[in-house]
């Protein structure tokens, strides 16, 4: 009897032509783009290893990957929150420039670190709050609201200073210069901060009421509201988080480059968006993972490293990232089209 049922079940599976792989794909369709990003990252590593004859996957290179991309990683985490709600935040690059130079200026003027760093973070969060309020209460499109944030951040950065300011504060430079070593591997406090941000964000998005509200808004804002979720509050919070992350990125960038510079981060928002999309987050919102965004950042960073190793022109970087972005969007588009067709 049991055998018969099993046989019947088997024939049914055969009739529908679904292998376990296909079942898995259809159940976890939302994860597929992120898996694709992991696959691309592995392929990039293998490709780099072959091309450089075993000189690519070294502890030094991998450690440097985190060090060099800590800033982008933090930005991508904030951007993931906003994109999950179905919005977009164009302001992060200039907010980062503003908070970075503000921090450098304050430290240069002798403001203690204990005041300067919270001021940087709050400055970023305040611009995020402004964008969030425009989006939520005045019904402004996220694109335009964050465009105002972009202009504001860039202009404020130049108001703080028109030229670069060197940072000589030990505490801030410590973030970058300290190397916690384990054999050939190392990690800097900036790297630890970036990874902690990812961990906290993943926890918040998956295990708290607020995080689930963010996903619900991206899935269908109207339904989320009718379910009684606090949509307005969560949406504004997403922009505040993105602004806060931009502020944190400003601090990391100041530590990384040892100076604040008002021209920093022009176009970085596009890199962050590209990394988030490559990491498998859908721009329509509701689907995606912070960990995917982390993979996206590493894909971006690895391409950059490989191009540097090859000694190719930087212009290829832009072209390759653009093409990768296109590839991922088309894949996402196909996935969305499939799930819509099923519905």
């Amino acid at each position, binding site marked *: 009897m049991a055998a018969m049922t099993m046989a019947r079940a088997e024939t049914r599976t055969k009739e529908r032509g679904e292998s376990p792989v296909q079942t898995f794909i259809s159940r976890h369709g939302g994860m597929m783009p992120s898996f694709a990003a992991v696959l691309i990252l592995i392929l990039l590593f293998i490709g780099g290893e072959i091309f450089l004859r075993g000189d690519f996957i070294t502890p030094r290179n991998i450690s440097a990957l985190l060090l060099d991309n800590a800033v982008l990683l933090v930005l991508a985490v904030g951007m993931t929150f906003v994109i999950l709600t179905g919005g*977009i935040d164009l302001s992060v690059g*200039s907010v980062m420039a503003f908070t970075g130079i503000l921090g450098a200026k304050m430290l240069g003027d002798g403001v203690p670190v204990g005041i300067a760093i919270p001021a940087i973070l709050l400055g970023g969060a305040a611009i995020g709050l*402004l964008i969030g309020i*425009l989006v939520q*209460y*005045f*019904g*402004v*499109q996220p*694109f*335009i*609201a964050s*465009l*105002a*944030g*972009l*202009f*504001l951040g*860039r*202009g*404020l950065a*130049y*108001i703080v200073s*028109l030229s670069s300011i060197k940072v000589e504060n030990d505490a801030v430079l410590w973030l970058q210069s300290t190397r916690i070593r384990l054999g050939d591997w190392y990690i800097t406090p900036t790297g630890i901060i970036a990874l902690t941000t990812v961990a906290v964000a993943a926890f918040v998005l998956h295990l708290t009421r607020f995080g689930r509200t963010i996903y619900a808004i991206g899935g269908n804002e109207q339904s989320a509201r009718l379910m009684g979720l606090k949509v307005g509050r969560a949406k504004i919070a997403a922009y505040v988080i993105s602004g806060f992350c931009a502020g944190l990125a400003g601090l990391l960038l100041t530590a990384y480059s040892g100076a604040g510079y*008002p021209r920093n981060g*022009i176009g970085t928002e*596009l890199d962050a*968006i*590209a990394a988030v*999309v490559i990491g498998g987050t859908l*721009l*329509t919102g509701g689907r995606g993972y912070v960990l995917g965004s982390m993979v996206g950042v590493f894909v971006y960073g690895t391409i950059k490293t490989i191009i540097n190793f090859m000694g190719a*022109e*930087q*212009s*290829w*970087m*832009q*072209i390759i*990232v*653009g*093409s990768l*972005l*296109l590839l991922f*969007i*088309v894949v996402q*588009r196909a996935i969305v*089209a499939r799930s819509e067709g099923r519905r």
Partner: protein
Amino acid sequence: MTAIYKHRLFWPIVALLTLIVVNAVARPQFIKITMRDGELYGPLISILRESAPLMLVALGMTIVIATRGIDLSVGATMAVSGAVALTIIDGSDDPGNVGTVLIACVVAVLVSLVLGAWNGFLVSVVGIQPIIATLVLMLAGRGVALLITGGFITTVNSEPFAFIASGYLFALPFAFLIGLVAIIVLSLVERRTALGVLTEAVGINPEASRLAGVRSRSIIWGAYMVSGMLAGIAGLIYASNIKAADANAAGVFIELYAILAVVLGGTSLNGGKFSIAGTVVGVLIIQTLESTILFLGVSSAQSPVFFAVVVVIVVIVQSSRLRDGLAALSTRLRSRSEADEKVEVA
């Protein structure tokens, strides 16, 4: 009177006139226009001349936004167009030849048209969100421009090419005339044929208009091609102005200013109804504001703060929440005064 007040160009024009009046009061030479060797000069004329690239880009953006799209790649397209034109002129034996410059310009505009067609293909055929579809080219386009120029800033010394940005024709700057021709052609095509209405239909509801027999795919595709082509011409003007192709600096942020101009002109980013005249006014507001800010002695690098304030004010004024709030307030005031009257009667 209320008709004028309610007209959707009323506020943009008031804003522009206010800016001009404030400038004229602060520095009377602002409105002075002098004639020298049969060519007009003056701050107002330079505003017209300098606004040409933004005008072209914003006109293209208007059409794209009317189809409920957006084109972020215009700045990169400008860079590519300038790079193509200058590389051809630089590589030729006779950079001063009018024929060479003409060929270079035509090739550059054709390349931009192809870039626009690529965007249109991604949006209308593949069905990718416009922001992202054009983001691809925005990222990759500058890389392409850098490849064309070989990573250098190509400079040329070509009389006919310099004419595009700094030449005069019929006493007016040639660059302004290019913008004027674009405005006239676009207005005629969009408003004297059914194309404008069809574009609005596509923007309001692509699915419904397709079912009604509108070829929405071709219309959307065409919009991006127009935008690409106009951005290409803008790139030529920009390159001609600095007599160089700077792949990194050409058209940076111009997509944002163009979108701002369109929004200032009263065209909704949600697609549908669009106003070419509004965009023209929007562009002039931005350019006058830029000139005002410079006059105030603010570094041009700091001017984005002013634009941020302008954007915030404009979007808040346009938002329905504020209008509803004001309407509710005036109703309450009116009912209260009516109540007062009643008390008096009693």
